[in-house]
């Protein structure tokens, strides 16, 4: 023992005696294994020394142990320099031991699996792990971008808003690219993620978030009571801070109590433990988002297993025991490698048996920090000094043999290899230098209130802990223990237990919850210290926001905390301000003379910790992005080499190429000619089909369609048009009456789903008095259109000879059930989309492929040809039938030439609004036909119609080509178009103007019906 001496302590504290202990300096730490792990303790910690794991950092080979994180392994290997900051590229080390880490971010893995910005503090070590430092060039040690530090006097908060404006054209060319290159952190792989992700649902009565003392107590209480419990822990093992502290619960050492608690939890079948699972958000209705890192702790996921799994946990109640995050102190040099959170120092020593430094100094403003000094000594390290800005030794620490200095740390000396010494300044301004290779700091604790605030509940400031505690929590959620602002072990156990009991009771569980465990009730005292004047003192480490940046923002009027955040980028880094926010707004409060409560916090936003985009997408990528729908004849068509097109979720046969055809146009032309001159068929099963049944079915349809269906005879079909209530066209299709009380309604492929919803709305909400029932039968029926002059002959072969298919026996728009050869019933509809003699035939979907085969058989002698949607489209354009491009949601029935269908005698959806002045204006764009003047010219959809001789401009743009095809029958390209006053202009020559494709040609406005205008063929 050297002699004691007395010194003045800052503040009002009376002079007090304290010891320093040179003996401690002399004493060696517990022997450290030779080799790379220079800072590894020989005993203790929850690592498996029998399982050494090799890894590399920037290519340097090192060894750690199972149970290590990358960070703890780096600490054990004496690595201080781990990263570079965002703006100034300052050298940075490991600051924390958790998800809040702002500095120690690395690129983990390589190639397509490279993960930028991975926190070394949460990355579990595995054999062969390879990590690279990021945001530096050419190397971490020698980073040329560190030159930014020299310009830091200019690169202050918001500097770029004030410059780079002259000359204007240099912004995109020079300034911005330079800024973009310098910004950003890690590099993404740029390759498709080779790993698989998935999503899943879980349900429980009680979700417990966090498995520290409070979480364990809550889970045990609710579990014993019999509730369905999910215990989610982001770490790879249960325990939370219990893994990093010393102490006792129920008279047992923490580790022993923890083991017992784990045994009991494992024995309770109603508790589901989810480790490596971080709850990142709370959403409406008690749905919680959580990310399970299923296989991040190994190099590559095993076959058939995902890398990560996104959970949606539906919970009646949630007990959030997410703990608290220790707050840095803001003083000059606080970002040097080797400056570390006091609690992190304890974690590395107690949990990982890794010594962050041999001579550790501690800078604190609260009692809790002192535990670190205790831990360092216990591990045989040297405590160079404890600098407590309060200048008093806490009750519990009186016995400790420590050198206390009142005052503050005003300077940290050192370089890329970390702290060498610190300068302590007392209240009188006297300074002294202290040798140390690690500075532990504790500015107090911030309860982890994030989950309580995601529904915009505002946290409440508490002076006693100098921190924000949870305010109004989302429905069903409570926050307990440190997360609730009560830091003592006893309080955590007590509150956790009580919340568990309460949540279980609320979910109807009746069992006994047992008694709460007992822990020591260590007090927590703090006297805030927000800022130490001097050099660069960092508030947001990753984004290089300093105390003076905050003051500058205030001077410029950015006083709202949201303005502060946005102007300085404070709190916008990957740690989302977990370490910086409270310090930042405390400094703002200081600068504005407001108190912290009035200054308020920024809005907390999910996710609590960043989530891989791949996990949020899960299975839904590549061909699994959306489900696909196949037609009944899909595999048959595929076997014939059909080309398919995506229409909504459907895959439809677009055309059927045959050998020797040079392009799609040749195939489609062949298909059209085959139909027009012979017979062909097309799978039209994708049309929406609805059974409308019941005594009031006819009345129902009258109110739905602009035309009348109650008068439709049984055995007849009719084309119908529906409007939206705003009077514009909604959908069209043929509807047949199969019986007095049974209509078979069809919709377009695109509207099948929405139309069903619309019909149900009319049935259930608008007209509940009608006795009508609706069922979608879209998937029930394989429906084929058979068209062409030989259609009837084909059907004669297919149908039972008894069936009369003559014009009299089966007139146009007739419908009936028929018997087919080979014993099959089918519905036959004599309707035509192509304008040819045509029928549609429907059989149950499972006979769709057989129908295709049988149609080929029945039509063989006529050269029957299967055709796809392209040929279907060509034929409908030749006939001037409107479809998707004309049913654009902005056209009226009259625009489409169907105005005369609008019944005057009845009310129907859209009737009233269809009469509005602008919807009946004479200069509306209406459907016309378009022919090129030079028949060799190709027309293109999207070309605009400009009057001949007029200069293209907003006032001369009179419409556009909606549907275009090459007409095999006319031998040139034709189009449908929407053209101003089009019906009055048949015969007029106008321009089809298409600057996008550099085309501009003269075309003639015609009737939209190009082929068989009298309609003789389909009636024949």
């Amino acid at each position, binding site marked *: 023992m050297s002699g004691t001496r007395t010194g003045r302590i800052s503040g009002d504290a009376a002079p007090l005696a304290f010891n320093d202990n040179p003996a401690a300096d002399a004493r060696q730490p517990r022997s450290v294994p030779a080799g790379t792990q220079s800072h590894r303790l020989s005993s203790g910690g929850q690592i498996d020394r029998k399982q050494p794991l090799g890894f590399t950092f920037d290519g340097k080979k090192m060894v750690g142990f199972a149970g290590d994180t990358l960070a703890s392994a780096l600490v054990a290997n004496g690595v201080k320099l781990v990263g570079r900051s965002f703006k100034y590229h300052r050298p940075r080390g490991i600051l924390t031991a958790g998800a809040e880490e702002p500095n120690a971010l690395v690129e983990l893995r390589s190639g397509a699996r490279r993960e930028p910005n991975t926190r070394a503090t949460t990355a579990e070590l595995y054999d062969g792990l390879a990590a690279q430092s990021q945001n530096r060039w050419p190397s971490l040690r020698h980073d040329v971008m560190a030159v930014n530090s020299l310009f830091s006097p200019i690169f202050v908060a918001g500097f770029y808003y004030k410059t780079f404006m002259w000359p204007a054209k240099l912004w995109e060319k020079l300034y911005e690219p330079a800024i973009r290159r310098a910004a950003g952190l890690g590099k993404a792989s740029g390759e498709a993620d080779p790993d698989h992700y998935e999503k899943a649902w879980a349900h429980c009565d009680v979700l417990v978030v966090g498995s520290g003392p409070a979480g364990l107590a809550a889970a045990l209480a609710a579990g014993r009571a019999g509730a369905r419990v999910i215990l989610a822990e982001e770490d790879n093992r249960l325990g939370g801070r219990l893994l990093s502290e010393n102490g006792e619960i129920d008279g047992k050492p923490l580790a022993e109590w923890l083991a017992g608690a784990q045994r009991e939890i494992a024995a309770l079948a109603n508790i589901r433990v989810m480790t490596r699972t971080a709850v990142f958000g709370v959403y409406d209705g*008690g749905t919680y988002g959580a990310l399970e890192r299923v296989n991040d702790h190994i190099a590559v996921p095993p076959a058939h297993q995902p890398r990560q799994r996104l959970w949606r946990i*539906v919970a009646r109640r949630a007990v959030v025991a997410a703990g608290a995050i220790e707050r840095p102190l803001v003083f000059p040099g606080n970002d040097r490698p080797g400056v570390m959170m006091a609690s992190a120092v304890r974690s590395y020593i107690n949990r990982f048996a890794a010594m962050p430094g041999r001579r550790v100094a501690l800078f604190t403003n609260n009692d809790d920090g002192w535990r670190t000094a205790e831990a360092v000594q216990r591990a045989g390290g040297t405590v160079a000094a404890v600098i407590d800005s309060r200048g008093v030794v806490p009750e519990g620490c009186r016995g400790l043999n420590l050198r206390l200095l009142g005052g503050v740390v005003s300077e940290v000396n050192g370089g890329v290899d970390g702290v060498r010494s610190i300068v302590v300044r007392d209240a009188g301004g006297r300074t002294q230098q202290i040798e140390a290779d690690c500075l532990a700091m504790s500015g107090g604790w911030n309860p982890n209130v994030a989950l309580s605030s995601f529904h915009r509940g505002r946290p409440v400031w508490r002076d006693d802990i100098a921190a924000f505690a949870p305010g109004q929590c989302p429905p069903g959620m409570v926050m307990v223990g440190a997360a609730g602002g009560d830091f003592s072990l006893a309080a955590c156990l007590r509150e956790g237990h009580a919340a568990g009991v309460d949540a279980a009771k609320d979910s109807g569980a009746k069992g006994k919850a047992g008694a709460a465990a007992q822990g020591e009730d260590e007090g927590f005292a703090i006297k805030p210290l927000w800022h130490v004047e001097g050099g660069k003192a960092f508030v947001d480490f990753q984004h290089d926001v300093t105390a003076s940046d905050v003051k500058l923002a205030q001077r410029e009027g950015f006083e709202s905390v949201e303005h502060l955040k946005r102007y300085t980028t404070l709190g916008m880094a990957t740690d989302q301000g977990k370490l910086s926010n409270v310090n930042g707004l405390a400094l703002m409060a200081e600068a504005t003379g407001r108190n912290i409560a009035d200054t308020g916090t920024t809005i907390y936003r999910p996710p609590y910790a960043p989530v891989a985009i791949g996990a949020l997408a899960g299975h839904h990528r590549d061909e699994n992005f959306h489900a696909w729908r196949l037609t009944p004849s899909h595999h048959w068509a595929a076997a014939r080499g059909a080309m398919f097109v995506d229409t909504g979720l459907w895959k439809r046969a677009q055309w059927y190429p045959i050998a020797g055809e040079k392009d799609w146009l040749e195939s489609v032309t062949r298909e059209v000619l085959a139909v027009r001159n012979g017979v062909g068929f097309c799978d039209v099963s994708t049309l929406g089909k609805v059974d409308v049944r019941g005594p009031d079915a006819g009345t129902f349809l009258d109110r739905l369609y602009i035309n009348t269906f109650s008068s439709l005879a049984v055995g007849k079909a009719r084309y119908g048009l529906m409007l939206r*209530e705003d009077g514009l066209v909604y959908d069209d299709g043929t509807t047949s009456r199969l019986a007095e009380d049974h209509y078979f309604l069809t919709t377009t492929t695109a509207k099948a789903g929405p139309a069903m919803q619309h019909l149900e709305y009319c049935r259930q909400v608008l007209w*509940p*008095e009608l006795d009508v029932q609706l069922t979608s039968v879209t998937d029930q029926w394989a429906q084929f259109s058979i068209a062409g002059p030989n259609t009837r002959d084909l059907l004669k072969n297919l149908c039972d000879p008894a069936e009369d298919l003559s014009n009299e026996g089966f007139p146009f728009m007739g419908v009936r059930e028929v018997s087919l050869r080979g014993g099959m019933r089918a519905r036959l509809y004599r309707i035509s989309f192509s304008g040819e003699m045509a029928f549609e035939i429907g059989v149950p979907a499972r006979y769709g492929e057989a129908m295709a085969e049988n149609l080929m058989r029945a039509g063989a002698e006529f050269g029957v040809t299967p055709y796809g949607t392209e040929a279907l489209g060509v034929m409908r354009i030749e006939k001037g039938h409107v479809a998707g491009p004309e049913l654009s949601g902005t056209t009226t029935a009259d625009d489409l030439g169907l105005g005369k269908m609008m019944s005057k005698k009845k009310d129907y959806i859209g009737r009233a609004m269809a009469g509005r002045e602008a919807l009946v204006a004479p200069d509306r764009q209406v459907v016309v036909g378009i022919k090129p003047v030079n028949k060799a010219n190709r027309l293109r959809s999207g070309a605009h119609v400009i009057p001949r001789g007029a200069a293209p401009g907003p006032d001369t743009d009179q419409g556009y080509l909606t549907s275009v095809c090459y007409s095999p029958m006319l031998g040139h390209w034709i189009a449908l178009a929407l053209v101003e006053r089009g019906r009055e202009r048949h015969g007029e020559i106008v321009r089809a103007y298409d600057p996008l494709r550099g085309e501009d040609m003269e075309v003639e406005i015609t009737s939209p019906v190009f082929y068989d205008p009298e309609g003789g063929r389909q009636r024949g």
Partner: protein
Amino acid sequence: MRIACPFCGERELGEFTYLGDAAPKRPSAFAADGAEQPDAQDLFFDYVYLRDNIAGDMDERWYHGGGCRSWLTVTRNTTTHEIKAVGAAPGAGAQKPAKAGATS
């Protein structure tokens, strides 16, 4: 968000689609006596376009299309998303509606 369908029980948002405020009632283009409503366009303009856009509790139309295909009336707070009540449209199912045309 989760909606307690009166027929299916509580289900997640993805099974439902939203229409909007349940308050507007569809007028008729015809008066009770069968004559055309002279001011039909004004009545329908109000019905189709104007909204109270309530900040607070609002009765809304939701469709359980991913489930039992019933139309529901959901009383929901538009500032907190808290759901206060869920009822079925009068014509859901096959019961005879209390009064014809009722669309509460």
